[in-house]
């Protein structure tokens, strides 16, 4: 079965065509600058069997981007998908499992999309477009929040009046679940531990969003993100944890304009806001280490705050997990920036973490074990692959439902 996995951003559409159950990637790429016209033309970077091409094409919306991607694939009969797997950031309170799309699912997706106003609406529009344009193709929806459905009530509860919570649904959801689960499964394989017995702290450190996840017996028991992806670690443009009184003060200063404050905290804070220079922590760490910049103090502070928050949450979650098998680093920063891994684990021998500086610096091919032989808790760098994870879930769902996927009529 060939499953095309879509990962929909606000102005982009990433895709991978994966043959299941062998998990062989047949094609992939990304449509960029989807939406209103920008200074540069919209284009699709498409790759098949190592051959890359870039196609410039107008894509005023995700439905058009999807159609263009399907046309590229349809040039080769061997690349025609049998099913579609969608990534959805937020599953709300009712999606506790990944699902096969039907009318009821579609209605619920539309109902909850404002829970993640940046991430869900374009993805929901894409799902709707796929249904309309390829109605005979099976579609699945894989939610970032599903892995965190096991977070116990004590951890997901905010200390708010019960009636208020019942009325508005305020609770921790947690995000990046697909990635956390994927790398934890890979870690279990690497360590020879049954996934159902794995205790770990997973650090998904992306170039955009980032979160830590505490895992006990293969189940998520906490995640640093909360009701929304704003809470938790300092991220590229998100503030992360912030005194709620400060958020309300900002609201007063903005004359009650909640969207302006959300914009400030989601898009102009974090690494970008604190450094004043870049939203990418790699730039900030490099410039701070370089020492020549005029704003060196501010860059150093930005780097320190970023690293300090990860270290603090790492300690909190290692305490929660108890006897952890491993700490896992993944996604762009976690996989590729040794300095970050070192800075947040060095000196944590008390928690059983003993990083080997040489192995850490040398880790180019992943997965890699970065810990010394005597480290009680293994420190692992594992490349995440959310698309493969989505393909696995989708294949499992479709096989279970025994729904014969139909080949698209050319």
């Amino acid at each position: 079965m060939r499953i095309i996995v879509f990962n929909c951003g606000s102005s982009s559409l990433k895709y991978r065509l994966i043959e299941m159950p062998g998990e062989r990637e047949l094609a992939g790429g990304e449509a960029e600058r989807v939406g209103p016209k920008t200074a540069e033309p919209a284009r699709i970077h498409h790759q098949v069997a190592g051959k890359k091409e870039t196609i410039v094409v107008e894509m005023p919306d995700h439905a058009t981007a999807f159609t263009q991607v399907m046309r590229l694939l349809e040039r080769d009969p061997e690349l025609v998908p049998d099913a579609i797997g969608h990534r959805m950031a937020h599953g709300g309170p009712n999606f506790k499992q990944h699902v096969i799309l039907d009318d009821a699912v579609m209605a619920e997706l539309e109902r909850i999309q404002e829970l993640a106003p940046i991430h869900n609406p374009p993805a929901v529009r894409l799902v709707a477009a796929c249904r309309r344009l390829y109605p005979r193709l099976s579609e699945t929806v894989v939610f970032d929040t599903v892995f965190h459905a096991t977070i116990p009530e004590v951890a997901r509860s905010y200390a708010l009046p019960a009636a208020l919570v019942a009325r508005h649904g305020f609770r921790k959801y947690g995000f990046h679940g697909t990635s956390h689960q994927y790398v934890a499964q890979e870690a279990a394989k690497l360590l020879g531990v049954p996934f159902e017995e794995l205790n770990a702290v997973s650090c998904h450190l992306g170039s955009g969003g980032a979160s830590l996840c505490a895992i006990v017996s293969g189940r998520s028991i906490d995640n640093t993100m909360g009701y929304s992806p704003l809470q938790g670690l300092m991220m590229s443009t998100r503030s992360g944890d912030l005194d709620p009184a400060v958020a309300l003060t900002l609201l007063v200063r903005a004359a009650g304009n909640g969207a302006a404050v959300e914009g400030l905290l989601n898009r102009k804070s974090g690494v970008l806001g604190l450094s004043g220079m870049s939203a990418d922590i790699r730039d900030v760490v490099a410039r701070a280490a370089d020492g020549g910049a005029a704003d060196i103090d501010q860059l150093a502070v930005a780097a320190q705050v970023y690293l300090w928050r990860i270290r603090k949450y790492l300690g909190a979650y290692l305490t929660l997990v108890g006897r952890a098998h491993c700490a896992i680093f993944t996604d762009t920063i976690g996989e590729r920036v040794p300095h970050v891994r070192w800075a947040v684990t060095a000196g944590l021998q008390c928690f059983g973490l003993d990083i080997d500086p040489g192995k850490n610096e040398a880790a180019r091919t992943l997965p890699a074990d970065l810990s010394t032989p005597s480290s009680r808790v293994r420190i692992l760098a594992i490349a995440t692959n959310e698309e493969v994870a989505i393909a696995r879930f989708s294949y499992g769902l479709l096989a279970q439902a025994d729904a014969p996927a139909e080949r698209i009529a050319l």
Partner: protein
Amino acid sequence: MNTLVLIPGRKSLRYAGFVAGAETCTGSIRGFRWQGPRAALDEVRTIVQAVGLGDDAVSVVVHGLFGGEEFPRPAALDQDSLARLERIARQSPLHVAGSIETAYAVQAVFAGMPARLAFETSFFVDLPLRERTYAVSPDLSRKLALRRWGYHGLYHEAASLEVGRRLRKRGFQDPPRILSICLDARPEIAAVLGRRPITVTSGATPLEGLPGETNSGEIDPAVALALAGEAGLGPEGANALLVGESGLSGLVGHRVRLDDVLTSARSECARARDVLLYRMLLASGTAAAALGGVDAVVFSGRYVSCAAVVAHHLLPRLDCAGALAAHAGEWTIFTKPLEAVLAETAIAN
């Protein structure tokens, strides 16, 4: 020197008189903000004179919650400190206004007597930059004087000092890594290295951090904005709800005290207790990571009598994760009330 300690609160003024270090009288005047601090202090003066604290030999200590960066240590109550209080009034309007009102009343009622101001935030003035900085633009932080503070500095400092003394007596040489847990209406956990705080759970205001008797503690900032917006409360209404109707009382459904929640067998308290202990566990793990391990655990605060409940929940888990040094399993309690801490702090400084 005899000492009179004054602790102005939102609704009442607590006072305590000390003769040669021993507490001779204690009490509170209700409605002191309503009737005016001066009338309340006249009443206090009459009471303490009746127990032998003569006017000519009393040093007055006024407690303040927020002293900002203007008050890195206790200060004499004089024109200079009053001017400094005025300068920080906008940073924490409610708390500083209370301090200013009380300070002027002390000058009037106890004229000519030495008086000092002692603040909970002083201990945290030099909190490391990485800990006190929020991830927003420096311009915004400057405009709002935005940074993290702790709001039980007097307890944390006194308890840490005592633990340090005990450890040194036992031959401990290095600055001890102390997990300091203050059990008060707004509980607070700090990591202290020797005499220096490294982390603290509270934030720019006492709202952030652990859930308290009526304050929510940490929540997603998006929830605060949703309360003000979609829930229709507006910023002031949302703030009032988060400060005064949430926390342990919000979880239980009616007003409760922290010691009730920690010790009560009533099932209605169970969930609030679980949430509080869970957050305390996370904060303790955070502190342990900041310190690189824990040498000593000390409890303080108004509800320090409940320390065993908390210790029995936290310590085995910290130990399991490896965060406790071998000798840290013996937790200690710091039993002095805030009044006594203030009396000693003022003398020491």
